């Protein structure tokens, strides 16, 4: 038993951190938030560092590392709330392609992702008021040489900054994850409309497919993509958890720094137990979130029996508890923390968004109960 990172992993993490800091750190998120599109710039830089190759299998020009390794990259990305479809491309799409893709598809897409030439996202929701998988409703009708997609997907991250989108659709009348076929589609075939989002660093879009005929885009078996999709969503959840863990660590550091600097009543406020104890509690939750996330990543990578429980544990804990932690960080900074110019809200809005995007905390707790009880 050894639940610590290897030297290699630690070094990788440190080098990512240094790199992202040198690129401006959280300023990238702030520029995105204020209307610029920095995704291309961010991605070119990441590609130069070979980071998009991390989870791509060796035979397709990647580094062949697993979700745990990837989580360490996400943790550093989360520390600066890095804009861009990093979890969607590396955490979600790459393993899905590797699992379901034909040789041709893998040959076409995986090296391109590894080289930083292809970004991907995922279009899950047809109905933003429903939970997954019931929210997957779009029907795909077979045509002579492919399928016809008709309908509107919503809450699609970074749709205008990616080259492909994974689109699950129903090819057989079924519920749950049954009867689902996956398509790997160029979003240019759809009409995109940007939504007004809580988290402005991670734009969401509506994607309208107006009876669009596609061919050669099917990813995996007809009617049988649901299981792989379910597991891919688990990996996306862990990827987001890892980003939140990085953000939580950063928020604790920020509160500590402010607690040392900011003086009131002639004392640094971190000397007051009301503040000190709140920060100590933030640290407890950040540590717990990290343990749950590392374990979930490890359990998926090693195909452990309790992987699904581990994912749900990490997900509700990271989204709910880190969300509260980010609120506490804002609170520790007083009125300054409540301003747009202060970075605290960037993390908070991310956590609030993710808390419901891939299963609410309650849904994840129910899932744990259903497995365990």
């Amino acid at each position, binding site marked *: 038993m*050894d639940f610590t990172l290897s030297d290699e992993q630690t070094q990788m993490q440190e080098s990512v951190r240094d790199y992202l800091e040198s690129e401006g750190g959280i300023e990238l998120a702030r520029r995105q938030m204020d209307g610029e599109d920095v995704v291309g710039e961010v991605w070119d830089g990441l590609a130069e560092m070979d980071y998009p190759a991390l989870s791509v299998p060796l035979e397709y020009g990647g580094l062949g590392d697993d979700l745990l390794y990837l989580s360490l990259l996400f943790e550093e990305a989360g520390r600066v709330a890095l804009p861009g479809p990093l979890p969607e491309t590396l955490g979600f799409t790459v393993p899905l392609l590797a699992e379901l893709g034909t040789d041709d598809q893998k040959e076409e897409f995986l090296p391109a992702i590894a080289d930083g030439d292809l970004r991907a996202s995922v279009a899950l929701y047809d109905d933003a008021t429903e939970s997954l998988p019931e929210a997957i409703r779009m029907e795909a009708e077979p045509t002579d040489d492919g399928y016809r997609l008709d309908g509107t997907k919503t809450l699609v991250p970074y749709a205008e900054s990616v080259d492909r989108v994974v689109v699950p659709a129903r090819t057989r009348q079924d519920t749950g994850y049954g009867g689902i076929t996956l398509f790997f589609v160029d979003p240019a075939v759809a009409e995109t409309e940007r939504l007004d989002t809580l988290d402005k660093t991670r734009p969401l879009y509506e994607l309208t497919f107006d009876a669009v005929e596609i061919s050669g885009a099917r990813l995996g078996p007809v009617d049988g993509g649901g299981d792989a999709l379910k597991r891919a969503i688990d990996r996306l959840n862990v990827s987001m958890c890892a980003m939140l863990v990085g953000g939580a660590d950063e928020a604790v550091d920020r509160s*500590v720094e402010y607690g040392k600097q900011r003086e009131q009543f002639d004392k640094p406020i971190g000397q007051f*137990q009301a503040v*000190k*104890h709140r920060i100590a509690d933030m640290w407890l939750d950040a540590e*717990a979130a990290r343990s749950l996330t590392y374990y979930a990543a490890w359990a998926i990578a090693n195909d452990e029996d309790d992987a699904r429980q581990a994912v749900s*544990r990490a997900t509700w804990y990271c989204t709910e508890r880190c969300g509260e932690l980010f609120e506490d960080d804002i609170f520790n900074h007083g009125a300054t923390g409540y301003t747009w110019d202060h970075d605290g809200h960037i993390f908070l809005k991310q956590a609030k968004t993710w808390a419901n995007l891939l299963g609410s905390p309650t849904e994840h707790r129910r899932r744990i109960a259903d497995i*365990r009880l």
Partner: protein
Amino acid sequence: MVIEGKHLSKITADVSTVAKPRMNFDYTDEQEAFRREIREWYEENLPDGWIEGDRDLPDDEDEREQFLREWQRKLHEGGWAAIHWPEEYGGRDASLMQQLIYQQEKARVNPPPERSEIGVDLVGPAIEGFGTEEQKERYLPKILSGEELWCIGYSEPDVGSDLASLQCKATDEGDHFRINGQKIWTTHAHKADWCYMFTRTDDSGPKHHGITALIVDMDQEGVTNERIRQITDEREFNQVYFDDATTPKENVLNEVDEGWEVAMRQLSFERISLSQSLDLERRFDELVEFCKNETRGGTPLVEDPHVREKLAEFDTRIQAAKLTYFRNVSKQMNGDLGAEASFGKLYDSEIAADLHRFRVNLGGPKAALWGDDSPNGAAKDSLANISIRIGGGTSDIQRNIIGERVLGLPKGDQE
């Protein structure tokens, strides 16, 4: 049951690092063999029915003492009384990994309390770290065998978290010290043979100086005690009065006036920190069983959506506690553990507080009853956990430790 100072950091680094495999939760064949050895020993030696859940101790105090003494004797004979201690004092020189496996197996069967726990956990390490060879030879073996029982004179009526302000006085009278003063919350003083205590030998300088750690014979005229009834209706605590009690000079631990160092550093006997999380995991399993068997309005509790969600919440928090414990133990094995070891006491006791409150409420109206009629025994557990949050450095002190030693926040006026 609260034990003074139980959760003070007992962390030492394992410097014997070897080439490190990647993250894994596997155990080697040798480690699994050690696990089997413990299991088999428990199966053969635990009282009849214990593993199946019949864990009641005798109600009568004398019978209970007899029972616990017998259990301690068995543990000692089996070599399980303190596996992390050196063989020369009755231990096994167990590695950190063996200690972890032992903790896991112990949590699984929830054996009777160890009568020598205070001696093993707190007194022994202090004697080993600061004592003379004579002191080690004289005291350590009898701690393990349970022949001699110890208590710790730490708190005083006006001295709780602020130990350095202690008042109980020891006066140098040539070949011995004369002790006058009072100690309180002293667990097991009424049956202890020895007291490991902190006294004031010099009050002229800064308050951290002039404290002396002494070993004092409890069986003398100058020592009297009064038992304190706790909210659980138990009487494990005592007030202890020292009225011209004496102890010879050779019973000083470390140098005279240098007791603060002893109190602050719990070193030696390279050992892993302990964690409530392993016990909580078993508690959770027991609670799930309870919820499957108990019905409300004809429906098992476990089918109530609110109960299910709460159980899932506890499941996650307990796993987070356990995994963080594993992460810290692993760091320790790699020789790389710092103040973050303070995570567990606070985090785990908060889970326990919530878990026991929840258990009480699951009892329904019957939760008003006590003793054998208390549903699931939850009422007493819920009360007892309050003492875990107070003893051995209160939760408030734990938050100070985290704030200051882990995160580097400025120290408060109080320190």
